[in-house]
């Protein structure tokens, strides 16, 4: 469905100079500062897959998504979405993708939500009968009925995000890009967004590319993740395999009688009762727990290694 090969994006800006006449020099300079935002990235996403595209701020996530959606032209490399080159065929590509930016709404600020949805329907040439059915489904899935007639500027963030999801899926695109769809949402709203994504993926075999900083999103939705940093792919594969491959050791945390807390790494294959016995022989234990490695600690470790 989505094929990316050696994708690279270099941003080029005239060099800025300090000092009182710096602005003038910037205006006439022929020297440029180059920043490589995406560096030789390749991956393939088959139809119906939900992929988490992860990386720290500035890693190149948004730039990649913008090239996948055709907003940006790649410096080099190849992007093919459903057999099309997105930036060369923006209009046709637009019809086959839904895009949600968590930070930016696509709805009409001053108009009731229902009007925004109608306008999206008109823009994507959704036939009237089809629109009614689609709208009904969105209302049921996302619980829009209570605020369909409220101007978008008066919606809460959670309501607005549900409206944005409806607008992105109203014309049944086979591909859905979600750029931080749960940013700033409360627990319940996050849950609603996740359930919607699971439903659309299951019902329509919609391919989903999700960028997020919320690893709970990833664990709830994706089986596969692509990790990038500084524009390069660090990992591409299943979440389980990632945790196994990079797993930091399990740790024994012991709270001692004198309010001291100590932690011991449990080496692979070591016997836990034996370790506890050894610690108990030397100290008075008040409480103890075993920490399993989770996705967050794994990813923290990978980011840390890539920075080094």
């Amino acid at each position, binding site marked *: 469905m989505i094929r990316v090969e050696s994708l690279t994006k270099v*941003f080029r800006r005239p060099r800025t100079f300090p000092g009182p006449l710096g602005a003038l020099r910037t205006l006439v300079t022929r020297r440029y500062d180059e920043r490589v935002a995406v560096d030789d990235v390749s991956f393939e996403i088959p139809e119906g897959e939900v992929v988490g595209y992860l990386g720290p701020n500035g890693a190149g996530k*948004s730039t990649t998504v*913008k090239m996948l*959606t*055709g*907003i*940006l*032209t790649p410096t080099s490399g190849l992007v093919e979405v459903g057999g099309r080159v997105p930036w060369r065929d*923006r*209009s*046709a590509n*637009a*019809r086959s*993708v839904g*895009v949600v*930016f968590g*930070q*930016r709404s*696509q709805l*009409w*600020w*001053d*108009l009731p939500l229902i*009007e925004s949805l109608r*306008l999206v329907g*008109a*823009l*994507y*040439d959704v036939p009237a009968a089809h629109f009614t059915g689609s709208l009904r489904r969105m209302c049921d899935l996302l619980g829009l009925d209570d605020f369909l007639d409220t*101007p978008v500027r008066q919606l809460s963030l959670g309501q607005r995000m549900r409206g944005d999801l409806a607008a992105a899926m109203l014309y049944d695109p086979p591909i859905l890009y979600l750029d931080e769809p749960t940013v700033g949402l409360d627990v319940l709203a996050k849950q609603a967004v996740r359930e919607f994504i699971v439903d659309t993926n299951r019902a329509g075999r919609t391919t989903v590319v999700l960028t997020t900083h919320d690893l709970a999103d990833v664990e709830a939705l994706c089986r596969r993740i692509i990790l990038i940093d500084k524009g390069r792919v660090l990992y591409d594969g299943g979440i389980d395999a990632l945790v196994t491959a990079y797993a930091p050791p399990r740790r024994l945390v012991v709270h001692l009688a004198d309010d001291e807390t100590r932690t011991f790494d449990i080496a692979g294959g070591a016997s836990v009762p034996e370790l506890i016995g050894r610690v108990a022989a030397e100290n008075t234990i008040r409480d103890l727990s075993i920490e399993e490695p989770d996705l967050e600690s794994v990813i923290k470790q990978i980011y840390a290694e890539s920075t080094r």
Partner: protein
Amino acid sequence: MAEIARALRLYWVLQRATMRGALQYRLNTVISVVTGAVYQGSGFAFVWVVMHTFPSMGGWSLREIAFLYGLRLTAHALCMLPLSSLIGLEWLVREGELDRVLLRPLNPLVQVMTKRMGMGQVGDLLTGVVLLIVAAPPWNLAMIGFCVPAVVGGALVEASFHLSLSSLSLRMLDTRALRGFLDDVFSKFGSYPMSVFGGVTQWVLTFVLPVAFVAYMPASVLLDKTGSLNVPALVAYGSPLLGVALFALAYRVWERQLRHYQSSGT
């Protein structure tokens, strides 16, 4: 052809939606329209006062100048009514709003044009059309047949400068000051007969910055004054065509700049 019809239909759908949004702020709308009309009206009132002292200006009577003024203003309003959104293009680029425009299956310029509703321009249009009708010589069919394309052509001349300069902001160049200056030149020089200016100024306003083509030449044709032009009468008759040619060129510039769009950070 079907694609153009679709674009026009969707332009109307989107522009109406923006209008409905703007009309939520009723007082704001009323103030904008009235301000636009009063501002342009006061500009003409000044001409009126001057003409009380001098019966004619460059060989043109008050009534003829009123007609020219109305023609220029109508063309200007016709240009800015759909294009007033371009004034905010810098903002659309900086806020990343243009990303969404590129994600929708409709010509990006059509979408940008519908982002705002220029209420002030409605006032411009009112004043312009009133002047045009009140000051016009007795109409006949041939005059109407020339006047309509002339106003459209004049609007396109002005529009082509706005469009090509605004499109530079797709590459983070802020051209608002330059556009403000050009807007001034078009209104300050375009609303009076070129014959009051010196030969060099007139030459520049004809061949370098074609202000004369917006209203002065068409008005000369309609008022039967082509004899005093600095170009052959045939050029004045063909003046509406310049707008079409310049706008086609400006649209090419816009498309070119759009290809270099770099979006914002997030």
